[in-house]
């Protein structure tokens, strides 16, 4: 789409303007938000351990990067592991379930039931089964990723319309050909939807896991900060999670735009 508009100079200009427009409001909002925050803290003389100013938080990173790095790496690895494994299993199983109606009909109701349970509810079980180590953390991140991924994948692999199926049937296409040449493509936007949604969820799983059994990682840091009333540290951990999750999410959006170039991005509804 962008290639079409960029052929005309006037359109380039207008698309540039609309990009500026696009960012204008979020930026204004952010500045206003930080301003009110700072003014509020100053005006009511709120102590730093309850609510530091944004500037305090940013400045507090100074000299702390070295000590934050291993924790960041640990959490990133856990989230990445959970995201990768959860999506791999979720997408594959979704494809299989969408292809075999009996399987879908027998399992799907339970999937819906299970995915509404919060991961915290699984955590004690995971610890009993896997012990106090990184196992339960990786499992928690995997489980939080898995369910939305599975649900999206089933929806995606089932999204091929009746007429297209009839066309393939009239051409005497084999089941495998229908899957590979049609269903797979129709599933791609849904798969990307799953990959995007599950970034945040993988971090949730990793952080919750660290709360329960971690001895390092940003979730672990949050607990430590909480015990020490070290509010600055707590905010630093939150900001790092936010930055990496957003960048990761953005990378997925970029990949989707690059790969799904047939004008059906984001049609994969953000079911979760």
């Amino acid at each position, binding site marked *: 789409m962008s290639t079409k508009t960029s052929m005309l100079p006037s359109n380039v200009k207008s698309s540039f303007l609309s990009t500026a427009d696009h960012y204008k409001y979020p930026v204004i909002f952010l500045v206003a938000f930080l301003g009110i925050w700072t003014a509020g803290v100053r005006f009511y003389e709120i102590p730093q351990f309850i609510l530091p100013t944004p500037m305090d938080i940013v400045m507090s990173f100074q000299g702390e990067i070295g000590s934050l790095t291993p924790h960041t790496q640990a959490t990133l690895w856990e989230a990445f592991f959970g995201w990768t494994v959860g999506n791999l299993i979720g997408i594959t199983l979704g494809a299989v379930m969408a292809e075999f109606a009996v399987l879908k009909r027998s399992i799907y109701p339970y999937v819906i039931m299970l995915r509404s349970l919060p991961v915290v509810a699984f955590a004690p079980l995971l610890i009993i089964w896997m012990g106090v180590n990184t196992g339960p953390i990786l499992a928690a991140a995997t489980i939080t990723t898995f369910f939305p991924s599975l649900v999206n994948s089933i929806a995606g692999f089932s999204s091929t319309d009746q007429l297209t199926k*009839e066309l*393939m049937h*009239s*051409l005497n*296409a084999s089941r495998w050909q229908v899957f590979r*040449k*049609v269903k797979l493509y129709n599933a791609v936007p849904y798969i990307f939807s799953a990959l995007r949604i599950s970034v945040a969820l993988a971090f949730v799983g990793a952080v919750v896991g660290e709360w329960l059994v971690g001895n390092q990682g940003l979730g672990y840091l949050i607990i430590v900060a909480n015990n020490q009333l070290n509010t600055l540290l707590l905010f630093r951990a939150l900001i790092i999670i936010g930055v990496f999750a957003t960048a990761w999410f953005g990378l997925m959006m970029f990949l989707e735009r690059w790969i799904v*170039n047939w*004008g059906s991005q984001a049609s994969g509804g953000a079911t979760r």
Partner: protein
Amino acid sequence: MSADDATDKSAGISRRAQDVKISVDSVDKIYGMDTDSPTQALKDINLEIYDNEFVSIVGPSGCGKTTLLKCLGDIIPQTAGEINVSGKSAEEVRKNNDLSFFFQEDVLLPWRSVMENVMLPFEIQGADTTEAEARERAQEILKTVGLEGFEDHQPEELSGGMRQRVALARGFVYNPEIFLMDEPFAALDELTRRKMNQELLRIHQEIQKTTVFVTHHISEAVWLSDRVIVLSPRPGEVHEVVEIDIPRPRDESTRHTDAFDEYEEYLTDTVMELDV
């Protein structure tokens, strides 16, 4: 009765031989057999369609036109009766890649270019042609439907009429024995439809293939067909078969003849009476 009528009259050039190509014998179709309220869509359909003939099926909505065509194409199974194409069952014909089905919508795969969409049948059917031959054939047919130079375009870049022409090219690219067309121009505006009709007339003239064409557009049916089959609704039954005795080749001027007007009026009245 229809078959006798057909043999009596002096026919257009497509009626060289009276070989029966498609025979439909006592076909019933009942939807929802396993439910409390089954509906009979087709009842005791008997038809003979000749080699190289262009036959249209018209009738009020709900008369089972599309159902009948989909039975012919082995897309849905009939409940009773037999369908034969050159002595083979509809299923054998489909599995042998001897039929080409055209749908109400273009059903293009949006992630494929125009060329890749037209090549789809070769890919699926693993035709015994080489890649280069297949490409050449696709190129040729794209030229026939007036899409030369659009090979690398994506479907979303094309107008509705152009997309429908890609769909036609995809259906014409391989070499089946029969064409089954389910209101392929229904989604088009009147002007584009007219152009596509001309296109189809010309293509039929050129490749002479047995064609069954479903439409609710009477003048389209008269213009294109050797015979028009009128179905009555609920359940769908053959009400009348009308021979269109207008010589071929036909063109735009055909539409302005008295014969054309008479057929159109007669068929319109017939269909309207059936549509209660």
